[in-house]
């Protein structure tokens, strides 16, 4: 690892002031699971690390007016095991539980995993399907960004160098809504997803048709991909094998995967279709329950 200066401010204000001062020369570190590897591999050589580890009160998991609020410093494990999350959004707890291993989930944080913007991660896919929003703060104020406008490219987000992710807000789902996240692991049971698919389906109780839906694809593009065309095909419809085939085809169309040791680009594209169908089926079933 190269040499850097480690700063560990006690308050959010100090963090933001430092960020404003150091800008791109500094990297923020929270859990460190992704950053420390890149430092160790010498892929990153920042002059400063600004640690969030002494900050208090931004690791809370709360609910207000039906909106789930995940503090940026909440660990993935805290979300996975939170009774509140399990009650309000079981799919979110299920998704966080599928990330890497217990050790990583004990270290990695909600905010860090979004800011890192690795397109192969699990939580952003589900969060996007749940219409999550991200709270950002800088010395000059704060703002909110919808998660489906948050990611720009591989490992790139709209977060400015002087900004910090402070929280994630997940609205309560409408009644008669079911959600699912499926992670395809063809190699070993602990890996990045070859494909991850999150589906959220809201049904009209009387007709049983899909009133609203979200379909988000992970690991098959530069960012998690929201498959809007596929969603449109599903809206107002009942689930049939033919429809699901068309939805899967629309989703496949959107993908632009990178081939790697988890599968070639063609395979990832093909598997997107398979898991879109399976995720919708599961979400649909849950919506009926």
């Amino acid at each position, binding site marked *: *690892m190269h*040499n850097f200066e480690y700063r560990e401010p006690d308050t959010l204000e100090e963090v933001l002031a430092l960020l404003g001062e150091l800008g791109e020369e500094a990297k923020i570190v929270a859990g460190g699971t992704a950053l420390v590897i890149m430092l160790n591999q*010498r892929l990153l050589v920042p002059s400063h690390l600004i640690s969030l580890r002494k900050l208090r009160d931004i690791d809370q998991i709360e609910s207000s007016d039906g909106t789930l609020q995940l503090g940026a410093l909440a660990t993935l494990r805290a979300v996975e095991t939170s009774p509140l999350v399990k009650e309000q959004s079981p799919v979110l707890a299920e998704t966080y539980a599928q990330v890497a291993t217990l050790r990583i989930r004990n270290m990695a944080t909600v905010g860090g995993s979004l800011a890192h913007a690795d397109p192969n991660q699990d939580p952003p896919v589900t969060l996007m399907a749940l219409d999550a929003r991200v709270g950002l703060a800088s010395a000059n104020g704060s703002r909110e960004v919808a998660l489906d406008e948050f990611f720009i490219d591989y490992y790139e987000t709209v977060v400015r160098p002087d900004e910090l992710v402070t929280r994630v807000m997940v609205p309560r789902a409408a009644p008669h809504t079911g959600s699912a996240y499926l992670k395809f692991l063809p190699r*070993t*049971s602990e*890996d990045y997803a070859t494909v991850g698919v999150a589906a959220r389906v809201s049904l009209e109780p009387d007709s049983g048709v899909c009133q609203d839906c979200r379909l988000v694809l992970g690991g098959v593009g530069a960012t998690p991909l929201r498959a809007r065309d596929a969603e449109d095909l599903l809206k107002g419809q009942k689930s049939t094998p033919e429809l699901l085939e068309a939805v899967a085809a629309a989703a496949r169309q959107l993908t632009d995967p990178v081939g790697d*040791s988890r599968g070639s680009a063609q*395979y990832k594209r093909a598997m997107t279709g398979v898991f879109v169908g399976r995720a919708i089926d599961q979400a649909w079933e849950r919506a009926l329950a």
Partner: protein
Amino acid sequence: MTYTVVGKPLGQVEGPAKVTGAATFTADVILPEMIWGKVLRSPLPHARIVSIDTKAAEQMPGVLAVLTARDLPDTLTGRVVYDTPVLARDQVRFIGEKVAVVAAEDPDVAEDALALIEVEYQELPAVFDAEEAMKPDAPLLHPDYRSYPHAPEKFFSELPNVHSHVTWQVGDIEEGFAQAQQVFEYTFTTHSQHQGFIEPHASVVSVDSEGRAHLWISNKMPVRAQKLLADAVELPQEQVVVHPVCIGGDFGGKGSLMDAPLCYHLSKRTGRPVKMVMTYTEELMAGNPRHPATISLRTGVTDQGKVVAFQARVVFDSGAYAGFKPVPIVNIPGANSAAGVYGTPHVKIDAYSVYTNCVPSGHVRAPGDPQVTFAVESSMELIAEAMGIDPLEFRKRNLVQDGDLLPDGHRLEHVRIRQTLEAAIESSNWGKPKAHPHVGRGVAASYRHIGAGEANAEIRLESDGTVKVITPVPDTGTGAHTVLQQVVAETWPLPVEQVQVEARPELFETDSGAGASRVTYVVGQLVKEMTEELRASVCRVAATALECQAEEVVFEDGHCTVKGSSDRTLTLAQVAEAGSGKPELSIRKTQVNRDNPQVTTFTAQVVELEVDPETGQIKILEVVTSHDVGTIINPIGHRGQIDGGLVQGIGFGMIEEVVMEEGQVSTLHLGDYKLPNIKDIPPLKTVLVQEEIGPAPFQSKAIGESSITPIAAAIANAVYDAVGVRFYNLPITAEKVYRALRERDSNGE
């Protein structure tokens, strides 16, 4: 036979140290004033080194030495053939080859300095495929290989880049094919697998004021390492002192010097002890993974379904150097089991080991066996199907029998393949209805020799009355020391606690170390004989003290007593005192077993699995592993070898691959090179077909390199049974199954 200590599930003698963190592995060795070495590796697969500028690195604060080949003696090293430079001299031959080394106070500083070394390369044409490398116009990696020390002249070849061509034969292959009515030809390929030990290679060297090199090294053959280091750095062998350490997993891969010569040169230069620990990335780009192989089979069969001729051409990708191969043929001995568990009268096997600009390959548990077994056990099914014979029946018609000659020259005794195979079938769901469509079952079988080699030991009665066995064989995790403890305790008999085993490689001058499924056999047998000898000496000393005949002395609860008079008794500590100074109470011996015993071991496995036809994903529902075993000395250790080898074999068959593209490894950490984890293991039934026949002590046999071998073939055969697609290469990944299914569907309809 009934035994009191043999057969007991004793925990490893190293257990308390290992579960508390007290056990010392090489990387745990911390010496006063110790510094760290880090290497700069070649980014190119084949190039001439034009210049190396180390000035800036040398001037960096905290840097104590920077060395290139120009600073070292012009030596080559290797486990048998010396073909590998300590640092690349003039030329690099693979991506990851060591070019320069830095020593610094701190490993981070050493890494900082590496970035300041400027190397100018001139690229040379490279070859990345063994078959291509054998063609007439291929670039030559080692034009001078015939002059390398210990290059086996007998196996030289005229083919480009082939450094060893070995032929094994039984009968007359032409005659065999003349007898055959049908001839079948198939080609299979297998890939590179890393040993996957959790401890990466580490070395520590401290050169003392008398110029002696003290060596700590993750090497399972420490006495050999002493000789190799001495040669590599041009020291007399007795100037190298190897200190014992625990080895954090071997699986065949830890027999080389790795960074030890560099530690020596840095230590000599700086006057400080030097430690080098490879990162796992270095392991994956420059370790010594399993040889990729291309296996072409030609099988002659009579109309009655009898295999009469079997010819195999096996091409191993040796990578850029052959120095990781530990056998005198400098080839992969497992190739001689390419004819499988069949008693084919006419066999010819040609194995070529070929230089390429890839990562140098080395030995991995049962070297060569999983590769050729995948080929032969797939081909048996293909042939059976083509001839309309049930594959199991076809196998049974051709099984090897007592008195058959193996290609390696062994005439077999006590062959129990039939029982082993039948036990596997009977314990599985073979022939029963299947729970789901796309469920398949596959079987495969293999054999493994019990290894030969040289054993050394010292055994003595200590003053506290314990019997101590001193061995040069280190603990690599297999429980060898526990087995030796049990052998001594049983032979004597003594309570196990009264027997201690200690690894002291520095006390011996030669030894084969651990490996090749040899330790229980060659070391166990020697220690058993020495135990009897020491016991006789103890009896004589005790008899004098007890005033009786030596024959009258008996051992009970660790005491020696005059037979029939329980009041006339001595503790062993008292005997030791009485015999103090007597040379016969400390025995030291060497024994060489040149040949593998005629008795071998057989394995048969049945895999039941389910394929998801939409994704190609394979889920193993059950594995039955059946083993031909003798007396089991330690059931915990014995089972551990079966379980661990099996999961490693599943990794080889469907999960693991060191992926290389033009010599560049892309699976460079354990997040990309995946090892099977605790959730990936299948339900397992182990069947032991036991008979007290074996060459090792108490009629025991080897087990360490058995279960890894047939599993990949059994998986391939089960996938075929499940979905009807046949695989000619490994690993069988979900994606390959998916593609094969799509291809079949698009061709078929």
